[in-house]
Structure formats: structure tokens, C-alpha cells
């Protein structure tokens, strides 16, 4: 039975933007100093609240990108052209600005790293963010738990954290990364060049006998498609954790 933590009130706090990292042309990470941050688990998210000077408010949830071990809190935001919040966070916000947030939130979609089941991570687009927190946590605790990331992006330019993922997967500590590029592939591309489908999952997923734990995150159609294929392939529904991102995360 999964643990439900009694945590008390969840308060809004102010984080100060210490650093802005452009990850791709449309995606940036905001690295925040949050003085009263209670700590978090990989996979959790924060709610961010913006208030205009006439009192108008908009609220969105963003997965925490940073490992629990990291001294600062990072969120990674994809700028949606017709979004309301994301064009502010990626575009307007500057170093030194304050952002109102509350968290950490979520207990279902977390990886603590204390069980040794092999891990399969499946990401669509910005769905990679909470999975990256899990990968960063894995590195921080020097885990060698066999971990595979299957990450679907539109093109090579859209791969978030590409350099870091290349480096971590070359470290030889049991992490491998398989990319799918669904719209455009660079010359000589040898990775997957189509949307995630059942045969692909069959190739990438850990054998059922190894009892993997599986995390799937991304847009709803991808998450539901992948979860459905995995169930069809015989993986236990209880071992598959899903988190759907909506375009309303804009």
C-alpha cells in the first residue's frame, strides 16, 4: 500500500530566479532559490501562481526538474505560443524576479530510488521533466539501478537536456537512453523515427520477468497509448505510473 504522508497546510511561497537556462528554442529552466523549501521527491511538481496588478490570477502546475539533492529548485517550462503563463515564464521573467509557488505536490508519480526494480521511463515532449528529476536523483545517490529512458521528441533540436542525457548515458552506470524523433531526423540518424508504438516498447522495455517499474509522462494521447500497449504486452497495471500533461499547462 503506497504511503500517504500527512503534511499539513501547503503554503504559497516566493522563489527568486537565480538562473535561467535555455534548454531548446522553446523550453527554458528556471532555477529558483526558495528559502523555506521543505525538500521534495523526484517526480513531484509545484503549482505556480501569477498575479497581475489588477488582481487577475493564473495558476499552472510544473514538474520539478531538479534532483532532491540539488540546493536549488528547478522547473522546466515549454513556451506555448498561445499560452497565458508559459510565455511569461519563458520570455518575460528575469534573474532576480520572484515567482510564487507551492509544493512539493504529488506522491503517486514519484521514484524514491530505494527499491531495486529496473526502471523504464517513457516521455513525450516536456513529459521528460519529472523523469529527468528521477534520473538526476539516481545520479546523485550513485544508484546503478538499471534504467532506460524512451524519449519522444519532434526533432533533435527539441530534445530537452540532450547534452546531459548524452553524458549520463555514456557513464556506464546502467542508464540508457533511446530517442524517437517523430517529425524530423538529422542525416545519419539511427534512433527511432516514428511515434512510440507497441513494437518499439517491446524492444525497449525490460522483460516482464524483471518486474520493472514504469513511469510514463507526456500529452494525454501518448500516455494513454503507451500505457495501453504496456498492459497489452502483459505488464501489470499497478507497475505503470502515468502523468498526463495538458496544453492547458500553457
Amino acid at each position, binding site marked *: 500500500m503506497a504511503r500517504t504522508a500527512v503534511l499539513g497546510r501547503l503554503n*504559497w511561497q*516566493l522563489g527568486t530566479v537565480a538562473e535561467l537556462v535555455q534548454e531548446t528554442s522553446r523550453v527554458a529552466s528556471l532555477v529558483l532559490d526558495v528559502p523555506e523549501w521543505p525538500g521534495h521527491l523526484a517526480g513531484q511538481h509545484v503549482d505556480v*501562481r*501569477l*498575479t*497581475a*496588478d489588477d*488582481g*487577475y*490570477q*493564473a495558476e499552472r502546475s510544473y514538474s520539478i526538474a531538479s534532483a532532491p539533492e540539488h540546493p536549488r529548485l528547478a522547473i522546466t517550462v515549454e513556451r506555448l505560443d*498561445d499560452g*497565458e503563463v508559459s510565455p*511569461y515564464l519563458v520570455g*518575460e*521573467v528575469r534573474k532576480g*524576479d*520572484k*515567482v*510564487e509557488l507551492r509544493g512539493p505536490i504529488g506522491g503517486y508519480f514519484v521514484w524514491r530510488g530505494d527499491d531495486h526494480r529496473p526502471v523504464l521511463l517513457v516521455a513525450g515532449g516536456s513529459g521528460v521533466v519529472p523523469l529527468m528529476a528521477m534520473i538526476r536523483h539516481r545520479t546523485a545517490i550513485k544508484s546503478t539501478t538499471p534504467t532506460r529512458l524512451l524519449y519522444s521528441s519532434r526533432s533533435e533540436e527539441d530534445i530537452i537536456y540532450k547534452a546531459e542525457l548524452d553524458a549520463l548515458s555514456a557513464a556506464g552506470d546502467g542508464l540508457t537512453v533511446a530517442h524517437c524523433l517523430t517529425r524530423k531526423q538529422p542525416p545519419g540518424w539511427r534512433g527511432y523515427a516514428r511515434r512510440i508504438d507497441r513494437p518499439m516498447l517491446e524492444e525497449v522495455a525490460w522483460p516482464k520477468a524483471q518486474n520493472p517499474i514504469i513511469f510514463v509522462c507526456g500529452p494525454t494521447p501518448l500516455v494513454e497509448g503507451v500505457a495501453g500497449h504496456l498492459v497489452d504486452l502483459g505488464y501489470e497495471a499497478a507497475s505503470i505510473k502515468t502523468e498526463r500533461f495538458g496544453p492547458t499547462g500553457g
Partner: protein
Amino acid sequence: MSFISRGFRGKRRDATSSSRVPPGQYVVNDFPVLSAGPTPRVAVSEWTFVVEGEIDQPKKWTWDEFRKLPVEEVTKDIHCVTKWTKLDTLWKGVSVDTILDGVETAAEYVMAFSYGGYTTNLPLEDLTGGKAWVAYEFDGQPLHPEHGGPARLLVPHLYFWKSAKWVQGLRLVKEDQPGFWESNGYNMYGDPWREQRYWGD
């Protein structure tokens, strides 16, 4: 008041037509999609519209029959309880007066019900006298499923949750009973000009 986010404006909010904008609302240029569940997919070949309840003879139309009823084109401002207002929206549909033509009833209230299970309650008086339509075209195009197509109720003088999407029929009832949102915090009547959003407003 809480912290102000430097430089945040949010979606463009136009305050100039303020006499047309009820209290607490702001004007949008897009048409937000709100939904309490999966979008029903109703083929027009299967679609029917009924009037039932406190009525001697229930009425029913197929899509083809409904499309033969006299049609009206109206331009209205619409106000969602989530605070957005959209001005000058263009609709085409059948007036509820036409639908209820010839109906004799002791009922004073209506429960509108939709494909997918949504319900909303209104006084009969607010559906008649040129105040309501069953609309199947928006902005010159067939009403898209995400906005309630094939047809939705249109009652612009009340908050837009009363304009039931995917409307399937009207049930004439003697007593006012709360529908889907009215039974969970939203106002039984919902007049935007008196800002009747929630219970007790």
C-alpha cells in the same frame, strides 16, 4: 492582496466595452473550451431532441426534422462563470419559443439534459419570450463538438453553464431541481448582472 508578478498581464483583457461586461468579467477574443467530461460524439443520424415531462404529448424531432424548423440568426454576448466574456458571438438555431409552440404545461421549470449526462435547470420563463435557442451553428459554421455540437442550448442572459452543450432535450417540471453544477455550489439562477455565481449569491 497577494504578491504581484512583475510584468504579468495574462490574456489580453479589454475593459473598454464595460457597459456590456457584467461585474467581475473580462473580455476574451478566443472561445475557451470547458468540459466536465469526454466530448460526446453524436452522429446527426442518431441525434434527437425531445420535450418531455409535464406535457400531454411529448415532442421529438430527428435531426432532419429539427433542421426544417424556422431558424433564427442571433448575435449575443456570452458570459462564463469562470469570468470570461465574449462579445458579439454569432449563432444560428431554433428559438425555444418555436420548440415549445403549442405546448401547454403547468410546469414552471425546465431541466435541460444532454448527451453525456450533463444537466442544468432554468425557469421556463427564462427559456421563452425570445431569450433562448437550440443552436447548431456558431460563427457561420456547424457547431463543433468541443463547443457542444451537433446542438447546444443557448441562453445568453444567464451564465453560460446554463447553455447546455450537446443538448438532448428539455424536461418540463413543476419544481426547480438543481442540475449538475447547481447541485455542487453554483447558483440556481445565475444572472451575470447580479453576479449570481454561487449558492447564496
